[in-house]
């Protein structure tokens, strides 16, 4: 459903992505793993049309969407939960949620709204409060809920569990797994690589703007390099690395 081909992109003179090829099929959860600064968020920005690439193509369905404006891409069902709670602060919780479904007929929104409130009861309680009065974690729930309102076909999530209490993190991952259906594809970026790989069908490892490794969730979880770099690996190794860095 999504094919990203040879994407090069960056900001000003700084090139972040150096030729990226990935794809997401219908009914798949695909995760993108990489250190901070590897280019994960930049790639999601390119796919959602926020950032235009220097070269390469983004194909959704049969169609090139590379240079379409964001709102046209949203209308096709490509949604992004942005990292760091980009909610509408001066709107109420309910208004924020309704904005998520603005491209759909109003009468279709009620069941989606019910589903969001069932998932995050605190949003129901706080539906009349302004977005900015929510706690950080509640804002994160609101951005997740708002994206659900759009009925995404391709659902891209940039750190959906950011700032959530451990008990809720488990719930969010269960929900992501439920969202996967024959019609929906999910592209997931998570700092919690262990959990992401548990629910992912496939994954890509991104290092300094290039895909260096790809495989099924299970393959990547058992890969020694992935374990050491992203899953907490062996503590002794890490201590060695950080000492080296200090000495340099």
């Amino acid at each position: 459903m999504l094919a990203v081909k040879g994407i090069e992109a960056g900001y000003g003179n700084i090139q972040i992505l150096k030729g990226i090829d990935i794809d997401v099929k219908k009914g798949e959860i695909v995760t993108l793993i990489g250190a901070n600064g590897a280019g994960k968020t930049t790639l999601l920005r390119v796919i959602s049309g926020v950032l235009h690439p220097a070269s390469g193509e983004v194909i959704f369905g049969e169609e090139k969407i590379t240079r379409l404006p964001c709102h046209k891409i949203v209308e096709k069902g490509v949604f992004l939960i942005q990292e760091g709670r980009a909610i509408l602060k001066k709107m109420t919780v309910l208004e924020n949620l309704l904005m998520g479904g603005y491209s759909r007929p109003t009468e279709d929104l009620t069941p989606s709204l019910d589903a969001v409130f069932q998932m995050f009861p605190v949003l129901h309680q706080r539906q009349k409060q302004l977005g900015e009065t929510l706690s950080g974690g509640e804002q994160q729930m609101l951005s997740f809920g708002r994206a659900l309102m759009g009925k995404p076909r391709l659902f891209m999530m940039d750190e959906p569990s950011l700032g959530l209490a451990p008990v809720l993190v488990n719930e969010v991952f269960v929900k992501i797994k439920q969202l996967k259906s024959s019609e929906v594809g999910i592209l997931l970026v998570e700092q919690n690589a262990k959990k992401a790989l548990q629910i992912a069908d496939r994954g890509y490892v991104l290092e300094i703007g290039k895909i260096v490794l790809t495989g099924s969730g299970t393959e990547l979880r058992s890969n020694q390099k992935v374990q050491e770099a992203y899953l907490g690996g062996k503590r002794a190794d890490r201590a060695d690395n950080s000492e080296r860095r200090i000495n340099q």
Partner: protein
Amino acid sequence: MLTIKNVSKNFGGLKALQDVNIHLEPNKIYGLIGPNGAGKTTLFNLITALLPVSGGAIQFLEKELTGLRPHEIARLGIARTYQNIRLFPSMTVLENVLVAQNIHTQSGVGSIFKVQRSDKKFLEEAEAMLKHMGLWPKRKEKSTSLAYGEQRRLEIARALALQPKLLLLDEPAAGMNEAESAELLERIQEIRNSGKTVFLIEHDMSVVMGICDYISVLNFGKLIAQGTPGEIQTNGAVIEAYLGREEG
């Protein structure tokens, strides 16, 4: 060094904090955990006077904080980072740190414009700070061009530039993968070893349980438990309200 005594905070009819008592000793790492919306960030906002207390008192080094302005509290030796990152977006990485150092030199708005780039001592300190947080190679980049996890590290560097005695960290590991948060954990321990006290809010339990000497747990604005990591991990009320049970 910091005593929070019967502190309460109301937002209209909402009791965000009720009768909270926490005492911090010098040279230790303290954790503050709890479900989303429990009042954790609100407590930090009261300590740093971003919000006035509704009841109770906070003392720092025998001094009453009630009635002081945020900058006065910073001068007394309390620095913080923010859950929703608040860097100076139009400044470079290095400038973000230099601005903070200025608090100990001159007072008044004019001082901001007198940052002397040639001032060797400040530059050396800023260099050490940025190297410590692994950001020196990016010193000339705008703070907004940094990846999310890097922006969090820059906030810590900027807070350290105030040379605080007490450092408040609001979700320092959010947006970092396990290897990155393990490294951050070592940095925080080094900060404590340099003679500072750290009080941190964090949902990453490997960080909290790994480095905190003592943990306080908030739920619906009330302290429900305080103790060592071992005590907290086995506390039934905390497991129920916050930790949940690990799946898979």
